[in-house]
């Protein structure tokens, strides 16, 4: 059985990204393939996708097939459920944990200037994006939180280093929904 096809089959049906270690468990003809063999097969498969609606990406957890973003809007009506939307509070909290990890709940509240809704961290933990990674040695020994590999996989990242640097984000370039709402309110006002 051809290793490239075997890897293709595994990646087509896997529900999580597969790393090279995992792919080495595919043993065509009873022989464990070398990492180089697998890398070569992956390169081949990546090439084969070039003209197609799917792509082979490399994230922290390994390799994953996905349908290119170009087609998402067109095929979305065929999907059973829509992806959930996360609140600004959740995304800001996630960003603080991603960039400043490990952080305590108090650190997050300090940066955001508001106390954290009780379910917010739980939502991120249940989603598998955040986990308690230890405790800070201060009174009360509060838990410190960090992001997970599932977080990187979800955002298609190989490492946290692929996120834009905080310095680049310092410029208040874009005003999100808020300004649009304000304009709507102003329009009503005048």
């Amino acid at each position, binding site marked *: 059985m051809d290793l490239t096809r075997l890897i293709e089959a595994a990646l*087509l*049906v896997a*529900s999580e990204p597969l790393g090279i270690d995992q792919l080495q468990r595919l043993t065509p003809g009873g022989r464990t393939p070398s990492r180089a063999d697998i890398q070569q097969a992956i390169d081949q498969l990546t090439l084969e996708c070039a003209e197609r609606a*799917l*792509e082979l*990406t490399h994230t922290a957890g390994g390799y*994953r*097939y*996905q*349908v*290119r*973003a170009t*087609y*998402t809007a067109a*095929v979305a009506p065929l*999907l059973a459920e829509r*992806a959930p939307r*996360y609140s*600004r*509070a959740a*995304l*800001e*909290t*996630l*960003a*603080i944990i*991603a*960039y400043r990890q490990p952080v305590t709940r108090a650190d997050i509240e300090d*940066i*955001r*200037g*508001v*106390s954290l809704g009780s379910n917010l961290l739980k939502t991120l933990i249940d989603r598998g994006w955040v986990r308690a990674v230890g405790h800070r040695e201060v009174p009360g020994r509060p838990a410190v939180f960090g992001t997970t590999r599932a977080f990187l*996989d*979800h*955002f*298609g990242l190989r490492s946290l280093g692929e*996120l*834009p640097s*905080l310095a680049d*984000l*310092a*410029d*208040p*370039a*874009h*005003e*999100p*929904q*808020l*300004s649009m*709402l*304000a304009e*709507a*309110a*102003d329009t*009503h*006002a005048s």
Partner: protein
Amino acid sequence: MTAAVEPTQQELPLARVHGERLTRLPEDLYIPPDALEVFLEAFEGPLDLLLWLIRRQNLDILDIPVADVAVQYMAYVELMRDLRLELAADYLVMAAVLTEIKSRMLLPRPTEDDTEDDPRAALVRRLQDYARFRNAGQALADWPQFGRDVLPLAVALPDLDLPPPQPQVSLGELLAAMTEVLARSALTAHHHVRREPLSVRERMSRILGQLTADRFTPLLDLLHADEGRAGVVVSFLAILELVRERLIDLSQNEAYGPIYLKAA
């Protein structure tokens, strides 16, 4: 309600001029309360509200006209109160901070350019820090997400008659289970757990498996010289134990004659 809306909405454009006093323009204004509520509830806290006030007027974040901004900030907080929005205590804490900075700004400072002594410095740092994460949160929201922007495949795997996955057990689990059993039986005490070396118990099973109930097997067939003295001892002990536990029958037709075994 109208009265509360009025000053805020009218002051804002005028507050752009640095240092200039706000002029109240008495004018009737009306914003549907629902829209206003949605708008106000969208603020993620006092820092968010302050940032919005500053950016909306294109103010320099490093040189905030605290007195003006404090007035506007309080107007919004009052508005939230009037609308009976659930007002986080954090908003009131910030109001106190602004008031304090405002009063310290009135005191003479050693040098005008000394930013370290600027009473606004701590607030500016907090605002800048929050602004970064506010943008970072937005960047994450915009980032291509798996399942939202790029979609997972739902390719089917034809179901051959594969055996269902079997539970895996580790030696550690097995030992833990036995430990548990022994601990319990020690507690109940009515049971006396016997222990023989496992090599003997294993040999007992093996020998039992070799014997049948309908035919006698000579003892010597079960003792293999190639296992060495130790192996023979283990087999012999196993046979004795099997007899004792009434798992096999042992027969000898005459003294010193061959010994035969059969399964019970």
